[in-house]
């Protein structure tokens, strides 16, 4: 059986590889919280066991053998997390550290027993996928929430940072795997303005980087959901509900007929650039920024 340290390293490299290839020794040192010389020592050892390829000055990458070993560790880690939350009833922000210790003390039999007990669950409590026993990972088309733009709708699929404090912070905001958020706006510094269950909240980029999300097609949503007008597609009709922005723009919106309760028909929306909307019998051209600050609910044109 491989030592705990080896498994820790392989796991860390595997996770890093999603964003960095090859993985530099310094980011590895950061992730594992160890010194650079210690990493270098371990890398020599792993290379000797043909678990990784090491290119001096560039970094390391897992070999097929190393990657298989890493996935096994990850599988065991995530199974334990599930076990701790689902069977023992621990909170999701408390299970990561325990699973880190438990994952190394598992035999293949124990691993299979766990998986069967958990009904072959395919994600950990944080939403990350559990590789199957052959090392296959169910692909997710998730990307960091920070890459979403204003007007898009996203379902949080996983939290990439499992540290307790971080999890408690986002839980406090109401964000968990499977939460659906509307991205209202993205500031120049990457801060997101979100709408979640009717509540507006702001999320800095560093936090949004760790939230993996899939985009949700706007048409699947409940009709009473408020969306920015810029999300109405050509031909769709909405009822104006509220504004999002200062008083300065309010006056002009009102005098051009964008009053709450009025029906707005999207005449042209090409996904970027200004939109053309019909309100009170005339076509009004609106800059996209402005259109994303006017909140509407979509209505079915047939009704």
């Amino acid at each position, binding site marked *: 059986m491989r030592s705990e340290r080896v498994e820790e390293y392989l796991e860390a490299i595997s996770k890093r590889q999603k964003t960095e290839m090859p993985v530099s020794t310094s980011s590895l040192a950061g992730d594992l919280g160890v010194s650079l010389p210690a990493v270098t020592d371990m890398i020599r050892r792993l290379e000797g066991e043909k678990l990784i390829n090491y290119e001096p000055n560039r970094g390391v990458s897992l070999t097929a053998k190393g990657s298989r070993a890493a996935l096994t560790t990850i599988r065991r880690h995530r199974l334990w997390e599930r076990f701790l939350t689902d069977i023992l009833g621990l909170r999701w922000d408390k299970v990561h550290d325990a699973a880190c210790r438990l994952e190394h003390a598992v035999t293949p039999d124990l691993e299979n027993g766990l998986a069967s007990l958990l009904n072959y669950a395919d994600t950990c409590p944080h939403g990350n996928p559990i590789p199957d026993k052959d090392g296959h990972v169910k692909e997710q088309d998730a990307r960091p929430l920070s890459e979403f733009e204003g007007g898009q709708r996203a379902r949080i699929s996983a939290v990439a940072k499992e540290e307790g404090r971080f999890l408690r912070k986002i839980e406090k905001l109401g964000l968990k795997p499977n939460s659906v958020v509307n991205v209202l706006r993205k500031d120049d510094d990457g801060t997101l303005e979100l709408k979640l269950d009717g509540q507006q909240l702001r999320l800095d980029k560093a936090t949004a980087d760790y939230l993996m999300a899939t985009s949700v097609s706007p048409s699947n949503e409940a009709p009473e959901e408020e969306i920015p007008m810029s999300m109405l597609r050509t031909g769709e009709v909405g009822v104006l509900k509220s*504004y999002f922005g200062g*008083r300065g*723009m*309010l*006056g*002009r*919106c*009102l*005098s*051009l*007929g964008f*009053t*709450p*309760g*009025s029906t707005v028909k999207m*005449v*042209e929306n*090409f996904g*970027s*650039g*200004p939109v*053309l909307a019909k*309100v*009170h*019998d*005339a*076509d*009004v*051209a*609106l*800059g996209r*920024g*402005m259109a994303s600050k006017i909140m509407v609910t979509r209505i079915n044109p047939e009704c």
Partner: protein
Amino acid sequence: MLEKSDKKTIVVALAGAPNVGKSTVFNLLTGLSQHVGNWPGKTVEQKTGIVRYNGLTIQLVDLPGTYSLTANSVEEQIARDYLITEKPDVVVALLNAASLDRHLYLVTELMELTPRLIVALNMVDVARQEGMNVDVKALESALHMPVVPMVASKNRGLKELVEAIAQKCNQPADSPAVGHVEYGSEISSDITHIEGLLADADTSPYPRHWAAMKILEGDSQINKLLHDRLPPDRQAALASFLSDKESAAITLAGLRFDWVKNVLASAQEKPTAGRHSFTKRIDHAATHPIWGLAVLAAVMILVFGVVYGIGVPVQHFLEVSLIERLQALVFDHAHFMPGWLQSFLGNGLLGGVGTVLTFLPILFLFFVTWGFLEDVGYTARVAFVTDRFMHSLGLHGKSCLPLLLGFGCNVPAVMGTRVIESKRARLLTILLAPLIPCSARMAVIGVIAAAIFGGQAILVTAGIIVFSLAILAVSGLLMNRFIFQGERAVLMMELPLYHEPNPRTIGMVSWQRTIAFIKRAGTLILAVSIIIWFLSYFPSGNIEGSILGHIGRGLEPLGKLMGLNWQLMVALLTSFVAKENTIATLGVLLGRETTGLSQTLKGMLTPAAAIAFLVAQVFFVPCVATVSAIRHETGGWRWAAFSVGFQLILSFALAIVIFQIARLV
């Protein structure tokens, strides 16, 4: 108050939203009896004119186009201040019959300021086409005011409008009140409460009740005005009262639109389907992100085709058969005059002012084609399709309109920035407009490129245009970033329905613009022409030994960096009067009888120096008329000076870099 005799003068204000045909109605009614000026202290055009009818003299005042009377823009503030302080005898609200519910909103606001209102319903033909029939009688009884249906573009309904005005002003002052919007007990008690807080303050010129309502609506101008007049404790009380009334503006606007809806329920027949078919079909292409640009390109090619196809031969004709003949007359046959007078008349007046005047036909044609595009409603689409590009410069689509005008002449471009609401976006557009190569500069480029590059002149000319647009974009990005700190302008405008153009309106508007250009440019060009002539004549009696000649020689070291000799530097300097003067000056300085100017230029300039010269010429300081327009539109010398300094440095820097690089190639 005006019941004196059958001979009386009344003042009538014409109010209405932009693009509703206000200028058409105004032009048709007043004809040439117009006075065009500015509203006091504002750079918004004020037009007044006289209409005579049955011994009645109507002074018609064209208010700026507005959708409401809450001060969201200078136009709205001007319109309402005029109505409140000048108290016109009758106010005509011109509405678009094809989008009545939006346009009646303005009426709900006007009703609160004056009972003497007439509704003029324009474009009833378009409305009918779109399937919207308006029952005029029902509308009259719902609004309690006269309603006159009209089709201004076909001169229909104008007489009826004047009759209605005459009748209205004969009504006794206590005639039945017009309808008004019921705001409900909550809003009314809020207004009363604010009125109470304002009790001891001077709200003039605004009626107290109205001012209280506007404060509740969050009107920043009135808020600021009254804030300064209130004692501190009242200021605080008002602020705390308003703090949880943020949604009052929305409620008020909602109530007004509800009221409009009720009025229209009985008076308007709504179509079932298939509306705006004609406009919709054209807009399908004209507002498309890709096809829209193709349409714009085609339209601009057509515009320039017409303008240059007709205008350039006319300009050429005027220059050769009028100015040059007159010059010949002065120099060859007026020997009885002293030499300086001959030179003054021939070079100073004819060569300076005269040459500028030959460009007027080009300018007029440009105004006509532009006026046509405006009148049919196409220019709003230009703003829409170009918005996405202008955004990266921190501007929005509306800024594109004056910049396109700049290809004709930079002066109307600078004046045309008035369509832009945001002060900052307007200033940035003003500063960028002189970077557009105008028709005069194109003429210079054409002559010089043809002389040096022969068959490749077209390529060189196209290259210079593309280069100057690239520099414009870069300058826009930098100025937006560093001078204006990346503020954003927002596009928000109604796209009018396409409609038939009215030749008379187009003609009048083009004429007014040409006159405005002459007024703006004329005197200044004359003055500067004289100064430049003086500098180029004295003390030696010829340009070589003149003050200007000395200045040019003094600049030769700088010129050397760009590959230019002193004659070319002098030519650049004189282009300050008018860009086309470059050629005239070179003609004087280089035009030896034996060889033509082209030949001389070819012998004198290497291709590298020629390109450097063209670049320097394109970016050189804006001409006098443009500088004066900038000063006028920005309300001071500061930005005019900035523009001159910026382009002086830009033109020399670019020319030096280009010459030094081109020399190595």
